[in-house]
């Protein structure tokens, strides 16, 4: 079944949101992820 362009765009936005959320979580946890004390 052929999907509409709107459906494909929504899916792309969904995966982009997942990528951004992943980056945001990692940035928020930067101080815990990097070795301490980190210079």
């Amino acid at each position, binding site marked *: 079944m052929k999907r509409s362009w709107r459906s494909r765009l929504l899916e792309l936005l969904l995966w982009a949101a*997942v990528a951004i959320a992943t980056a945001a979580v990692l940035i928020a946890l930067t101080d815990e992820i990097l070795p*301490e004390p980190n210079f």
Partner: protein
Amino acid sequence: MQWLRVLGKLLISMGIGVFLFVLWILYGTGLYTARQQNQLAEEFDRLPAFERQTPEGDPLPPGPPPGYDPAPGAPVFRMRLPTIEDEPMIVVEGVGVDELKLGPGHYPSCRPGFERPLCTPYEEAFPGERGRVIVSGHRTTYGQPFWALNEMEKGDPIHFETRWGDFTYRVTGKEVVPANTQEIVVPSKKYELVLTTCNPRFSAAERLIVFAELETEVAR
């Protein structure tokens, strides 16, 4: 195999997220520090110079006045390492995670706002004073002020602009020590400076230490 397709897309998206995170660490943190340094430079330039003599006209010893206890993250002096870095850097008080995001940090004595092990029980020394002035900075990320610290050689100058005078130190040597060494943060009877950073790059396993001694003072 619809679920496998979804899983594949999920992993690709998360991989792009990790890539964005690495970009932030390598470049975004530098932009953050550059903006903070601009604000700190403006703030530092607005601060008045300290008196260099008593009301009777007697010269005061080099250093800030008694009771000078800058708050964590406050700009304390400007430092320039002309052999490895063109731009001067504002050094802030404190070497905690938050302070080093702003720029190089001056190792403080333990007092409210500073806790062990990121402070010394000894009297802290400022540029121009007798004692060991200690400045720590990031080797990578957050503007990487000490990225090329390993390239400093004996005799290289280190300039300081402070509210109590301008000073030049000369590098006397360098050393790599384990990260947990306690031998660096010690009192000294000499007029010396110690710069510390992580070694090797992108690792916190060791510390690179550069030693310097006071050469000249230029009254402001």
